[in-house]
């Protein structure tokens, strides 16, 4: 059964085509890697799939729901960890979870039980009453993952969840996620620039470049196709070795400002 179906999806910003007529499917319970160089259209695609952005053309079906037509139902069926952190810094870990639970209308009793369960899984239960601004990057990520799972989504979107984390934390986070995938059959849709991660855990890979899909398959299929011995080499063979020029967007300006501000 396909839990995500994307058909002829296109997004234009003025003359610029960010996502150009892409189609793919994700099976239920799959660990799906969506890879591509900077500016390839990964985040734009995720924004469209998660109702933050309206597509210019094409269709998306999430868990049998068209997010364009039934936004609220589609939103209940996925959880997301954004590329940029989105936890409330002046709130405690527990309050962040509580807030999410109320927004998703998880009943109080269930909410309490699940918050405890999830915070224990991500090993933040001892720190539940600490303000998030005292948390490290890895702890924030773990909290965001726990939060994204609170309403028991069918699909978990992860947009570069391990960016800027050390190998220890990365391993930790992936092992939680893989365990969830095994036990709860949650479909994982993720992007990353660490090709090793994708090679190790993805059951299916789609590579997108300049808005178009250039390859689809399992990591070993892609490696075989390009006669490469790692997914990184296969990726470079498929997308070329040139560094992508990208103009800074308003979001990048904000991001730069944030780095200065948080030094």
């Amino acid at each position: 059964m396909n839990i995500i179906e994307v058909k002829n999806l296109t997004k234009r910003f003025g003359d610029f085509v960010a996502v150009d007529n892409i189609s793919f499917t994700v099976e239920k319970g799959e660990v799906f890697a969506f890879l591509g160089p900077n500016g390839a259209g990964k985040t734009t695609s995720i924004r469209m799939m998660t109702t933050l952005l309206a597509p210019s053309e094409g269709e998306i079906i999430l868990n049998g729901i068209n997010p364009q037509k039934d936004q609220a139902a589609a939103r209940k069926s996925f959880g997301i960890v954004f590329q940029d952190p989105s936890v409330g810094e002046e709130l405690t870990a527990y309050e962040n979870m509580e807030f999410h639970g109320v927004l998703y209308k998880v009943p109080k009793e269930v909410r309490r039980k699940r918050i405890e369960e999830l915070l224990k899984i991500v090993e933040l239960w001892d720190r539940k009453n600490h303000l998030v601004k005292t948390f490290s990057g890895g702890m924030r990520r773990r909290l965001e993952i726990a939060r994204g799972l609170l309403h028991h989504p069918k699909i978990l979107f992860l947009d570069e969840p391990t960016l800027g984390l050390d190998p220890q934390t990365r391993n930790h986070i992936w092992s939680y996620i893989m365990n969830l995938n095994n036990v709860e059959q949650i479909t994982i849709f993720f992007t990353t620039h660490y090709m090793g991660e994708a090679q190790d855990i993805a059951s299916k890979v789609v590579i997108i470049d300049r808005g178009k899909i250039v390859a689809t398959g399992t990591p070993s299929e892609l490696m075989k196709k390009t006669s490469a011995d790692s997914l990184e080499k296969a990726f470079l063979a498929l997308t070329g070795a040139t560094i992508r020029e990208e103009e800074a967007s308003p979001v990048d300006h904000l991001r730069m400002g944030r780095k200065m501000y948080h030094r």
Partner: protein
Amino acid sequence: MTLSVIYILWLRQIKRYFRSKARIVGSLGQPLLFLLAFGFGFGPIFQKAGQGNYIQFLTPGIIAMSILFTAVFSGIEIIWDRQFGFLKETLVAPVSRLEIMLGRTLGGATVATLQGVIVFVLSLFVGFHIYSLIALPFAFIFMFFMALLFTALGTAIASVLKDMQGFQLIMNFLIMPIFFLSGALFPLDGLPKVIEVIVRCNPLSYGIDALRAALSGVAHFGLLNDSIFLFVGVVVLLFAGSFLFSKIEA
């Protein structure tokens, strides 16, 4: 419309306010400086011109100033918040944009009102006297309405801006003029025609006038006019803010 959603968004703003003590103290510096420097600096001249006690005149204006700034900022924070904060999380949650906008705006307005109340209490130590205890609750109501109006304005602006680059522009060409051309600092009698027209188009003028009526017992436009214009302003900006907010993409 779910009240629990609006409530938790409101609560978040309140918690945020009380947890950043440094910000509360920091944001009191400017109104206090204005109150002391202008109040005592222009006081003698004001008295000589036969207008009475300047602190008595100025205080409602300074209360309104701190409400204006706090309210607009809390609205404008959305720019930041939709990339690095909570807001992004709420935008993918199964709640309507109207609920998010209302919760946030009510929260921001409550915080701005609290800020106004603190300035009011401080002004009592500088020598301000309220004219009637019965009118005092009305003063708080007017403060809240002003706060609501300008938080909604901040939300509307933030929904249109993409990053903080336009912020200075908004500050210097919109927020500062709203403050300086409102009758916060000077009486509105005998102004040049151009200034008078601008003052009359400025919603803050009516807020300050109403506040002055409730706190000091004098009004330029009359309390009825003030209430009507203030109420209309709140309704218009809440609609504009909600509309623009419902259009934002993150």
